[in-house]
């Protein structure tokens, strides 16, 4: 069957065209509808010659289609242009700031998934009890709390009032050296080098921002796990397992939880994009030097090459994650293989 063999190829072509679409939309939005970026470089008193000179240096003198072609050609070589404000290459800026966001997102999603599964399982197992009611309230709260506000309130409670967490000083307290780079994730790097004291300090810095990001992410997972688990607890195969004398915890985790885990995977994949968008808000609050903060500053100062780079980066990540997810699905779930 030619069609079946071509399907992966078609999927790649499809993903590529989505990415090209994203690139084009971003390019258009940031070039067509905007105030003239030249104004950022020359003062109000600049002469026409100075303006033209600046325009030429920025590559904005050409017609729009030519600019678009330049932009695409740059993309193919990994060149996303230079920041209007700092003059540094966008790719380099994104790469330097990536580990900070990665560290934050990794722990936040892990914590969110763990809490979500635990809450979901407990609620399903004790369905209809007081505990179920409390967990339902907690989950509704998690879905409704505005992230940035949670960040501010945690800061007030744990830093200002209780003095148990560090203030918004980024990845390390002021004046502290970062551990030597291996992976770029401070806690992991410090542990790898046996420097437990630095690892603890870095972990403390992570505490509040990670908590802020995971408050919203545990809730959708908890809901999903509960409803999937309620269904499988009522099913025939679980009843058979019970009748055969399988222990209670084994029934819960090895039998009833399993079918629901695939949908957890789907939600977790969606959380990646959600967490990246959230990092724009949360990194600002905690002075976290990641790509979210970079994007926010860039948006506020009309630094479009950076904005483009960030949007592109996030979108590509999104498309890749969904493609991977589909591959994992067909491998894990035999029903999808035909």
């Amino acid at each position, binding site marked *: 069957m030619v069609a079946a063999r071509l399907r992966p190829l078609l999927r790649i072509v499809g993903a590529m065209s989505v990415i090209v679409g994203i690139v084009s939309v971003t390019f258009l939005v940031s070039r067509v509808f905007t105030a003239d970026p030249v104004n950022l470089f020359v003062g109000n008193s600049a002469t026409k010659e100075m303006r033209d000179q600046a325009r030429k240096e920025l590559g904005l003198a050409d017609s729009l289609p030519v600019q678009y072609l330049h932009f695409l050609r740059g993309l193919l070589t990994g060149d996303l242009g230079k920041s209007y404000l700092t003059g540094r290459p966008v790719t380099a800026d994104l790469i330097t700031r990536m580990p900070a966001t990665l560290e934050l997102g990794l722990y936040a999603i892990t914590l969110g998934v763990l809490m979500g599964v635990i809450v979901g399982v407990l609620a399903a197992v004790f369905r209809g009890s007081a505990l179920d009611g409390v967990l339902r309230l907690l989950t509704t709260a998690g879905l409704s709390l505005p992230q940035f506000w949670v960040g501010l309130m945690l800061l007030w409670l744990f830093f200002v009032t209780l003095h148990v967490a560090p203030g918004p000083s980024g990845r390390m307290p002021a004046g502290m050296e970062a551990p030597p780079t291996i992976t770029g994730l401070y806690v992991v790097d410090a542990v790898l080098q046996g420097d437990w004291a630095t690892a603890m300090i870095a972990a403390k810095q992570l505490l509040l921002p990670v908590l802020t990001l995971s408050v919203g992410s545990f809730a959708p997972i908890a809901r999903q796990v*509960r409803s999937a688990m309620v269904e499988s607890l009522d099913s025939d195969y679980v009843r058979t397992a019970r009748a055969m004398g399988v222990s209670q915890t084994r029934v819960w985790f090895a039998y009833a939880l399993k079918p629901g885990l695939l949908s957890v995977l789907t939600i977790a994949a969606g959380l990646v994009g959600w967490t990246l968008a959230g990092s724009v808000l949360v990194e600002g609050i905690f002075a976290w030097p990641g790509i979210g903060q970079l994007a926010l500053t860039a948006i506020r100062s009309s630094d479009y090459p950076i904005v483009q780079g960030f949007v592109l980066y996030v979108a590509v990540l999104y498309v890749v994650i969904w493609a991977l997810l589909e591959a994992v699905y067909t491998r894990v779930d035999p029903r999808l293989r035909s």
Partner: protein
Amino acid sequence: MATNVGPIYDPPSLAHPFGTDRLGDDILSRTMSAATLDVSITVAVVLLSVTVGTVWGSVAGFFGSWFDYLTMRILELLNAFPSLLLAMLVIAVAGPGLLNVVFVVALLPLPDYVRLARAEVRSKKNWQFAEAAKLVGRRPVGVLFAHLVPNSLRPLLTYASVNASQVAATVGALGFLGLGIQPGSAEWGSMISRGQDAILSGQWWVAGFPGLMIFLLAAAFHLISDAIADSRDQGGSW
């Protein structure tokens, strides 16, 4: 609205139940006047999105062919954008303002509404009540909008209510970033941003109360959605 009605950064008291901010404005009255704005923006956004999404999705699902194909490709494109980021980008470019915020935020959940409406109509268009309407001489447009769409509304409304709570948070987030209606206006998000610096010096109430309102509004919409879902499915799920 009167400015400097009280002392600066006064903690909550009988005179000012929510305290005052750095300009001496009473936070309770600002929070109340912001409620009109935030609630009406949220409702306007959801109404706009649900209407456009339902019409678009049901037409695509009913008539199919190239229009349906095109619709699905557009949805894929819209889905790949990180939503809050898209909103920030467009508003940064188009400038803050009430209408801009409403249009941009309405664009974010649009793919979900289109997809829901499309799926509902596709699954029901061959049911007997639709066939019967066709047999008594209803034109296709009539079958779609007088019979199929009204019978597909429940999942759309359940989702609209969940979505409303997300919209309330997004509007707040944009205001917090200074990309909302008008920086400094009485809107919950901008009020939180005004109180951001005061957090570190201990004045929690400036950002605290407006954020609490966003939370309550969002939670209220969630409870409504749960109620709609429960009315179909007794007990069981949450």
